[in-house]
C-alpha cells in the first residue's frame, strides 16, 4: 500500500515535484536570508570594531576609566615593545597601536592670520609604514573623495564635510593645536593629502586621520599610544577566543595596583557593542521569524491547495473502503516526505548561495554610489550553524501542518460530500 502511494506520488508531478519545488524555494529563501542578515549584522559589528573597539583593546587602567576624555597623559608607554610581544604571543590576532586625540584645527591665511578654526577629533593609525592592514581595515582606499592617501610624514586625511566647513582643499596646510602627553600645548603642521567620507555624521563633522608616527610626534608621545587594538585573523569576532586572550593577557601584564599597567577588554564588554550584539541578535531573530511565518503561510497554502485538489481522489478511496483515518495518515506521510526532500534540497541550495556570498560578497557599489568607511559597498553573508536547520521550520513543519489542516476537511465533510466531488 505504501509502495502504491509512493508510486503515485512520484508519478504525479503536481503532487511531488511541484510541492518539492515550492518547499525548496521557500527553504532556500529562508536559509539565504538568514545567512545574509547574519552577515549584514556581523558586518555592522565588525565596522564598529574596526573603528572603535577592536575585537580586543588594550589601554592603561587609568585611561580605560576615563577613555571618553581621551586622556593621553595616561597613554600606554613602551608601546612598541608591548605590541611586538602581543604579536608574537597572541598570533590568533593582529595588534595595532592607535592614538586618539582631540584639539583644534587652525587654518591660516596668506599673512599668517587665522582664516578658519574648528574643533577636531583625530585618530593616529599606521598609514605610511608600508603595512597596509589598517588602511584596508578602515576601507580608506575607496573612501577617499579627493586627493590621495598620505604617502609621507606630515600628510593627513580630513573628513570631507570638515574640509568644506574650513574651506580647505587638498594640498592646503593646517595646524593642529592640542596638548602633549605631558600636558603642554602642542602645535603641529600638517598637509592635507585627501578628503574622506566616514558615512556617519559624528565623524564627518570634524575628524582627521594622521599617521601614527605623526601623531606621536605632534603630541610628544614617542613610543606611546592611546590604545592597542587587536583583530582576530579570521576577520570575525569570536567571543570565546577573545575572552581567552583577554584572561591570559590580563594575568600576565596587568597589575591591579598599578593604574599605568595595561588592561585588555574585549568587544562584547563595550557597553554599546554589547547592546548592538544583543540588538542584532534580536533583530535578525525577529526578521527571520517574520519571514518564516510568511513562508509558512505560503507553504501552508500549497499544502492546503494540494489537499483540496485531491478531494475527488479521497472520495474514490473512501468508496473503495479506505477509512478517513487511513487517508489522513497517508496524506501526512506524503507531506512529510515532500517536506523533508524539499527542505534538504532548499537547505543545500541556500547554503551554496550563502557560501558564495560569504566568500565573494555582493558588491552593491552600483546602487550605492557613495561608499564610505562605515558603509562599505560590499556585503557578505555569514553561515552560522542555525542555517543548517532553520529551513526545517517552514519546510517541514508548515508543509505538514498545511496538509494536516487541509486534511481536516476530509473529516469535516460528510463522506457523501467528498463523494460528490467525484461527480463534478
Amino acid at each position, binding site marked *: 500500500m505504501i509502495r*502504491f502511494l509512493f508510486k503515485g506520488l512520484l508519478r504525479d508531478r503536481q503532487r511531488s515535484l511541484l510541492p518539492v519545488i515550492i518547499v525548496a524555494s521557500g527553504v532556500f529563501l529562508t536559509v539565504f536570508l538568514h545567512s545574509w542578515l547574519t552577515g549584514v549584522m556581523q558586518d555592522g559589528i565588525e565596522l564598529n570594531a574596526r573603528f572603535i573597539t577592536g575585537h580586543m583593546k588594550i589601554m592603561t587602567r587609568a585611561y580605560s576609566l576615563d577613555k571618553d576624555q581621551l586622556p593621553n597623559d595616561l597613554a600606554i608607554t613602551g608601546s612598541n615593545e608591548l605590541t611586538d610581544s602581543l604579536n608574537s604571543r597572541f598570533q590568533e590576532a593582529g595588534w595595532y597601536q592607535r592614538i586618539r586625540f582631540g584639539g583644534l584645527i587652525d587654518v591660516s591665511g596668506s599673512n599668517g592670520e587665522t582664516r578658519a578654526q574648528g574643533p577636531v577629533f583625530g585618530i593616529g593609525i599606521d598609514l605610511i609604514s608600508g603595512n597596509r592592514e589598517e588602511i584596508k581595515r578602515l576601507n580608506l582606499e575607496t573612501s577617499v573623495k579627493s586627493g590621495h592617501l598620505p604617502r609621507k610624514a606630515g600628510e593627513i586625511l580630513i573628513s570631507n564635510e570638515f574640509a568644506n566647513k574650513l574651506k580647505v582643499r587638498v594640498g592646503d596646510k593646517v595646524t593642529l593645536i592640542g596638548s602633549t602627553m605631558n600636558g603642554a600645548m602642542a602645535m603641529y603642521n600638517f598637509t592635507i593629502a585627501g578628503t574622506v567620507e566616514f558615512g556617519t555624521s559624528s565623524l564627518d563633522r570634524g575628524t582627521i586621520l594622521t599617521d601614527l608616527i605623526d601623531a606621536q610626534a605632534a603630541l610628544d608621545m614617542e613610543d606611546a599610544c592611546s590604545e592597542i587594538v587587536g583583530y582576530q585573523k579570521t576577520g570575525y569576532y569570536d567571543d570565546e577566543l577573545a575572552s581567552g586572550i583577554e584572561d591570559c593577557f590580563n594575568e600576565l601584564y596587568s597589575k591591579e595596583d598599578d593604574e599605568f599597567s595595561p588592561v585588555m577588554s574585549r568587544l562584547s564588554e563595550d557597553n554599546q557593542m554589547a547592546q548592538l550584539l544583543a540588538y542584532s541578535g534580536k533583530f535578525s531573530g525577529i526578521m527571520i521569524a517574520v519571514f518564516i511565518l510568511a513562508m509558512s503561510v505560503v507553504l501552508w497554502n500549497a499544502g492546503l491547495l494540494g489537499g483540496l485538489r485531491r478531494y*475527488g481522489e479521497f472520495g*474514490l478511496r473512501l*468508496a*473503495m473502503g479506505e*477509512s478517513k483515518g487511513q487517508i489522513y495518515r497517508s496524506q501526512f506521510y506524503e507531506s512529510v516526505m515532500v517536506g523533508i526532500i524539499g527542505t534538504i534540497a532548499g537547505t543545500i541550495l541556500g547554503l551554496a548561495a550563502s557560501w558564495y556570498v560569504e566568500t565573494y560578497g555582493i558588491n552593491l557599489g552600483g546602487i550605492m554610489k557613495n561608499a564610505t568607511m562605515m558603509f562599505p559597498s560590499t556585503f557578505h553573508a555569514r553561515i552560522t550553524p542555525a542555517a543548517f536547520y532553520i529551513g526545517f521550520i517552514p519546510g517541514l513543519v508548515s508543509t505538514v501542518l498545511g496538509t494536516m489542516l487541509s486534511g481536516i476537511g476530509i473529516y469535516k465533510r460528510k463522506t457523501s460530500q467528498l463523494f460528490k466531488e*467525484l*461527480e463534478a
Partner: protein
Amino acid sequence: MISESIITIKGLTKDFPVGSGYFRALNEVNLEFGRGEFAGLIGPSGSGKTTLLNIIGSLDTPTKGEVIVLGKDISHLNSQESASLRKEKLGFIFQSYNLLPVYTVYENVEFPLLLLNLPETERKKMVMEALEWVGLTQKVKSRPSMLSGGECQRVAIARAMVKKPIIVLADEPTANLDAENSHHILRTMATLNQELNTTFIFATHDEKVISYLKRRITLADGSLVSA
C-alpha cells in the same frame, strides 16, 4: 419471491439542510433486495436515486428509518466500520469512471485488493481474471488517459468486481457512453451477475440500462412509486 434478503430498508427518510430549513430527498422508502438481483432505481432527475444509492453504500446516513446492509445497520456504523463494509462487501461504479490517472489499468484494478492486504500472487491472479471479464487483458500497462470512454468504464467495472463483492452499486454507469459501449458493459455486468451471483443496483434514467434490468424501482420526488 426474494430468496435471501441482503438489504432491508424501512421507513427511510433523508433530509438535507437547505438554508434554515431542509429538503426532503427521500420520503418513507421501504425496500428489500435479495442476493443476485439485477435491479435499478429509475426516475427523473432529482428524484433521489443517488441519495438512496449513497445510503445503501454507507456513504451517507439516513435521517430517519432503518437501513440494514448485509446485517449491518447503516445508521449505527462508525466511519471505520462503514469503511470496512465498503472495502469487503461493496463495489462502486460511477458515471465518470473515476480512475486514478497516475496509475495503470492494472494498478487501478489492483487498488481494492491492496486495501484488503492480499498477497501479491493472489492479487495478480484476481486482477488478470477481472480484466479478462471485461476484455482488457491487452491494456494492463495503459494509463486511463490512453483509453476510450468505454474502455475506462470497463476498467471501472473490473475494479468494482475484482474483489467479488456481494453488492455493486452503479450510478449512471452509461451516461458518458455511446450505445454500442453501453450495451457492451451492460452485457458484461449481466454476465457477471449470472456467473458470480453479484447483486447489482443501478441508478439510471437510461432506457438501454432499463431494458437490461430484471427489477425496476421507480422513484419520484423521493418517494417510491413502484418496486
